[in-house]
């Protein structure tokens, strides 16, 4: 596999110009993404505006790996992007990615947020936080408390099989083992105020509607709701809740990532790397924060005020790869306690 040094930009620019002169097609990059198109389009537009490289994207939800695998060596995919590290690591394990050596990427993305050999890179983070009814007298929370009988019939969250939840449960397994997690899940199931389904924003609306008092959701939805970007109605949902950044008892707040990798048979490899590098640039990281209310991965990049107001994020130190390894076990435990039924 050809590796490319990013240390001599002059040579690269020349190479890029040469490649561009050879073929107009080279100024394209093909993106396969499980990321909702509305969330990344502003970033892609900015990339095209800056580099002149056109981005062709396809949003695939289920079956991204299967499609890329079936396409094989003919696959036009250059960049594979997912909204969950489990899926991203899956792509690596299925051999659908290739290593990237880029000083830019390595400098921008902290080591625990990227794969070995540059097989994948996190681009943004979202915290799994607790939404609580505005008037509840609580200020701090641990994930371990979610099964507390105090919350009997008062807890709302989306399907236990959703990747955001299986990742959180997998993190619990890393800390406490499967047996304790099983009990924890059983307690949480007892606490459910309604069927575990829908999306994270439904949690806020259901708290407003009196169905639940606490719930679990991603941090950026709070920004989307409170900013009014989801429409005036959702401002009310966002205002009906207060947000607590929970932690594990001996750890920090569980985060998931959106991330990307260069596809193994990428026909436009240079452009693919450039897209990744762009996405961790100051401009793009700012856009992630502003447009999507996510936490930037780049150290020192600014966080949106709405999100910053939620409190200081102390990221749980458990390596994502360790959590990913427990995903299967987490999913089975969810089945075992019939969480979604």
């Amino acid at each position, binding site marked *: 596999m050809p590796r490319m040094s990013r240390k001599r930009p002059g040579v690269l620019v020349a190479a890029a110009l040469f490649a561009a002169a050879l073929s107009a097609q080279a100024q394209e990059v093909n993106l396969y993404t499980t990321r909702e198109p509305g969330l990344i389009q502003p970033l892609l537009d900015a990339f095209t505006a800056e580099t002149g490289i056109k981005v*062709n994207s396809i949003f695939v939800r*289920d079956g991204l790996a*299967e*499609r890329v695998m079936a396409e*094989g060596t003919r696959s036009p995919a250059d960049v594979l992007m997912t909204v969950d590290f489990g899926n991203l690591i899956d792509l690596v394990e299925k051999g659908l990615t290739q290593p990237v050596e880029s000083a830019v990427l390595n400098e921008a993305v902290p080591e625990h947020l990227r794969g070995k050999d540059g097989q994948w890179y996190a681009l943004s983070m979202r915290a799994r936080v607790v939404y609580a009814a505005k008037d509840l007298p609580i200020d701090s929370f641990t994930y371990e408390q979610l099964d507390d009988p105090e919350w009997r019939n008062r807890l709302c969250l989306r399907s236990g099989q959703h990747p955001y939840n299986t990742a959180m449960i997998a993190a619990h397994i890393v800390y406490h083992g499967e047996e304790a997690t099983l009990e924890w899940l059983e307690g949480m199931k007892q606490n459910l105020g309604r069927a575990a389904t829908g999306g*994270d924003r439904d949690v806020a609306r259901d708290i407003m*509607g009196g169905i639940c008092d606490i719930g679990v959701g991603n941090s950026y939805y709070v920004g989307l709701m409170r900013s009014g970007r989801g*429409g005036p109605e959702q401002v009310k*949902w966002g205002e009906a809740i207060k947000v607590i950044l929970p932690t594990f008892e001996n750890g920090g707040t569980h985060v998931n990532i959106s991330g990307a990798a260069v596809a193994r048979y990428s026909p436009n490899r240079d452009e693919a790397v450039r897209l990744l590098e762009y996405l961790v640039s100051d401009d793009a990281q700012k856009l992630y924060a502003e447009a999507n209310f996510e936490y930037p991965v780049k150290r020192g990049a600014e966080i949106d005020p709405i999100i910053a107001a939620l409190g200081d994020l102390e990221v749980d130190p458990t390596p994502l790869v360790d959590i990913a390894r427990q995903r299967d076990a987490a999913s089975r435990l969810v*089945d075992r306690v019939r969480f979604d039924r």
Partner: protein
Amino acid sequence: MRPADSSIESASIGSGAAPAAFGRPRWNPWLIAAGVVALAVAAPIVALVATASAGSEELWSHLIASVLPTAVRDTLVLLAGVGVLTALIGTGTAWLVAAHDFPGRRVVDWALLLPLAVPTYIIAYAYLDVLHPVGPLQTALRAMLGIDSPRDFRLPDIRSMTGCILVLGFVLYPYVYLTTRAMFLMQSANLIDAARTLGAGRARVFLRVALPLARPAVAIGVSLALLETLNDIGAAEFLGVRTLTVSVYTTWITRSDLPGAAQIALAMLIVVLCVVLVERWARRQRRFANDAQHPRPLARQRLRGGRGLLALAACAVPVFVGFVVPTWYLLDQTIARVRFAGVSAAIPREVLNTVTLSAVATVLAVVCALVVVYAARVGRGQAPRLLVRTASLGYAVPGTVLAIGLLPVITGIEAFVDSAASRLLGASTGLFLLGSGAAVVYAYVARFLTISAGSLEAGFSRVSPSIDAAARTLGAGAVRTLIRVHVPMLKPAIATGALLVFVDCMKELPATLLLRPLGFETLATHLYGEAVRGTYEEAAIAALLIVAVGLVPVLILTRVGARGPAEAGMTISARAAVPEQGAAAAPPDQTA
């Protein structure tokens, strides 16, 4: 053309197969063409079997211990609930409309079909919003009762089994309505008139005569509604009901166990085939019930005053719940959204993409259906009919599962053509199917061929074999007979089948999502992209357009139905994957 003997003759033959003695070559090109079509449909399922056999350790012990008991129970409860509800609504309204006259009957007669245009996943989103404690209904209710907080008073949550059954029942009942209405109108007039003459009251006529006679039609309609229920994952999952289909997804997506998912999907396919067998059994019964020699239209009884209004109300409720409320909701959301953020510039392009893909797939599905069904007509023995069944298999597999099965098939074809082209022409064809949208069309045809095939079979069964014989005696070949004689006579059947295929293609989501080209969006994928991040309101425009475009074929369908209700009914009934010609179902004057 009105061959007076058609019903009798085809009844005696029983399947509408033409006498095959007229100049048919021994080596039948129709059979080969039909074989190709059947192979194309069966290929993804074969690929699934291959995937499944890759093995998945200790999957089934986990499933049996933790998943299957509740998943099977929930699936059965859901199917039973939806079955009962669609049967009640469909049969009840059909009986009111077919056997009675009351104010507004003409309107509800076609309006009752409107929910066909609303995809189940859209109606689930709509009702969650409308019925939510902070939604319009409960807010108004609280205002009326003088209660401030939803914490003090709220209705039961719609995200439950009951909610799911209600939502699906009110959107799927038209299948029962359509088949049963046709049956009431065409089949039982004589007997019902006789019962009335003999002094039986209304209820007695319905319960003792009309209903038993219509039972097979009810069974057909219900089995169609149940297939839709089984294959629909969006609405059920959204409302918190975890059927077996959801287990397929969990196994595949969350646990990255595709072989395991394929195993569950195939196990479900067997269940679905059982449903289909029940439906076939029901149709077998129907043939038995169809002996009336000279059916006449049913004389409608007038319902006056309060009774008439009651009948109107009973028919209006399903239309309101299944169509008016969700459409009103979408309209409201769309207006609010357009004011707030304008219309996405991509929408016209997406409409065009949606219509183009659906139209191409519809034409192909009709042509393939003609080939398969005509091959069965001119062919001898069981082989051609087996091919028809095989070609109808795609509908019995959930959309995503079919798409996953199609992936290796499509890329296999691409690889073969690519290497051939490289060798012979020195040019690479690359991913010409996935890259062009042809893969999506393939998926549509494979999935919905059964609709057009069933429709054509029903149509063909009304064309007396003596007509084939006459055409062939006069020197026309098989192709000429088909094009000059059959196709003109089959226009209503072709139209009905085509319209239904078109509506289904438009609504199709999972295969479109997985198999479409880069940067290519349809209304359904746009809708999904928004819905999946919880911004349903932004999806309202796309959802409304799906309903609006879907409405056109449904409205045309109601007109086709008005010309020949039995035609429409039989066409829909043919969706159940195993076409069995109810040869004598049509009265002689329906042939042309």
